[in-house]
């Protein structure tokens, strides 16, 4: 009787997962070994697609943009998130309103966040350029200049994501027992010493999880690029997820797109190896 029970409980979920996730994963691996435009018969080409992308400038450019994104966005979002968490745990007037404001980026679709920042950077009616002109600098097309576009988008992504890092840090800080601080204070420790030697070490587990989740988010970035790139997303702001989309659904290089998607997945899995190990253990 009991044996039948668990199968019944698991069946709906794993039917969905097998059909719509596991089978498609296998199919993608299969596709990555073929040349296919979505219409004519598939042609087996072995590892040719992988060979192609490894020698393809655009692939490495997209990869580089993801890495740059991660290297800038992650530390800033983390440090800013922690700073805001500490700050917004003080006795602040309407503290919850302030927290909610920082969190807005997490509540809205990232395509709308993209539109909001399109306004901010606009050369004619945007705040950034108006402020610069006021200060005597020249207005600049932040999103259209290949030198600045990626950084402008990274700033937008900090605005979107910092609400998340702040919130996890606030939760982690609340779990630290008050007594620890009181004891340290009685022993004559300064605020900085307490932060450095009690708070920071105790925040390590939360930090590790947040780092991994931030890395995964950075690698999967799509909506912001899609919107901030405008009608024709320029190559200098390509990221891997966007390249997969473009190759698959605009250029119809299904095999190549699959190979890129697999590389992206491997990078994501590698970046989250630590968290996977921990989750598997529980």
């Amino acid at each position, binding site marked *: 009787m009991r044996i039948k029970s668990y199968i019944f409980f698991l069946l709906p979920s794993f039917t969905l997962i097998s059909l719509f996730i596991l089978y498609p994963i296998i199919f993608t691996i299969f596709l990555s070994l073929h040349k296919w435009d979505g219409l004519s018969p598939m042609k087996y080409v072995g590892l040719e697609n992988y060979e192609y992308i490894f020698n393809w400038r655009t692939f490495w450019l997209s990869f580089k943009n993801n890495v740059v994104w991660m290297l800038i966005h992650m530390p800033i979002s983390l440090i800013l998130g922690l700073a805001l968490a500490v700050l917004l745990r003080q006795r602040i007037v309407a503290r919850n309103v302030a927290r909610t404001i920082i969190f807005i980026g997490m509540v809205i679709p990232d395509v709308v966040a993209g539109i909001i920042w399109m306004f901010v950077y606009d050369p004619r009616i945007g705040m950034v350029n108006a402020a610069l002109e006021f200060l005597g600098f020249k207005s600049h097309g932040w999103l259209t200049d290949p030198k600045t576009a990626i950084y402008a988008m990274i700033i937008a992504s900090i605005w979107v994501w910092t609400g*998340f890092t702040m919130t996890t840090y606030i939760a982690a800080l609340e779990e630290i027992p008050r007594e620890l601080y009181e004891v340290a204070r009685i022993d004559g420790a300064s605020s900085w010493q307490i932060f450095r030697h009690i708070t920071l070490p105790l925040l390590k587990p939360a930090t590790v999880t947040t780092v991994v989740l931030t890395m995964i988010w950075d690698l999967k970035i799509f909506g912001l690029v899609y919107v901030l790139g405008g009608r024709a997303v320029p190559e200098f702001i390509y990221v891997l997820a966007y390249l997969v989309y473009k190759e698959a659904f605009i250029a119809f290089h299904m095999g190549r797109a699959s190979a890129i*998607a697999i590389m992206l997945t491997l990078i994501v*899995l590698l970046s989250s190896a630590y968290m996977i190990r921990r989750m*598997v253990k529980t």
Partner: protein
Amino acid sequence: MKKINAKLVVVNLLAWTIAIVWLMPFIGLFMTSVRPFRELTHGWWNFEEAHFTLENYIEAFERGMGKYLLNSLIITVPSTAIPIFVAALAAYAFSRFSFPIKDLLFITLVFIQIIPSILVLIPLTILLREMRLLNTIIGLVLIHSSFAQPWIIFFLRNFFLTLPKEIEEAAKIDGCTDFQIFMKIVLPLSAPALGSVASLQFLLVWNEFLFALIFLKSPELWPVTIGVTVLSQSQYIANWGLLSAASIIAISVPLILFLLIQKYYIRGLVMGAVKG
């Protein structure tokens, strides 16, 4: 005492300066949406001549935002309810039964939680086409339901583990089947956890963009995320008022929902992230 107050003032000033700067882009969006087009050429912060108008909103609704809102709702409600029920069943199995391939299934869940969804978009397009579900809301709901499985299973499994087993054991002795116990005892006891999951999943689906972009081609099926994005790329790009009004409409539902159920939402997010 005086020193403490001075510090408090500084901390308050700092916190609120940051909060206001942080809110600026959003205020910009809002101001752009409620002022006439001609006033915006000097920037939304210029109030020399300031008029309030709902023209942009009216135009946004005329250009389909009402329909998109309705579509978002039609997509999001089942994409929240179905995966939660299905995942709750599986989570119950993981928390109460032991079975041979439990570890293998669990590890599978961990992996599919992490892989980017873009990995499977091409096969899913083919699959949905073969099932005659491409370009249908049912197809999209099925995809959302599948991808939500891992995180909801983890979340609810952790919650079910905290529920006392005694009531369930007593019910069993009284002759209840496992399914009855699940429906009549476990689910009602899990109301707060289900609330957290539902609010998180609702916002995730409402804000989702990529699946809808690929699987829904007909404009009459588009959710708000696709609606505003297409608007932002249309020839009316210079019409900032219209675009900002459409954006405000698109985020009104998640924003209001978030303000109403903030506690549930944050708890869900934090439990998912910190414990995850």
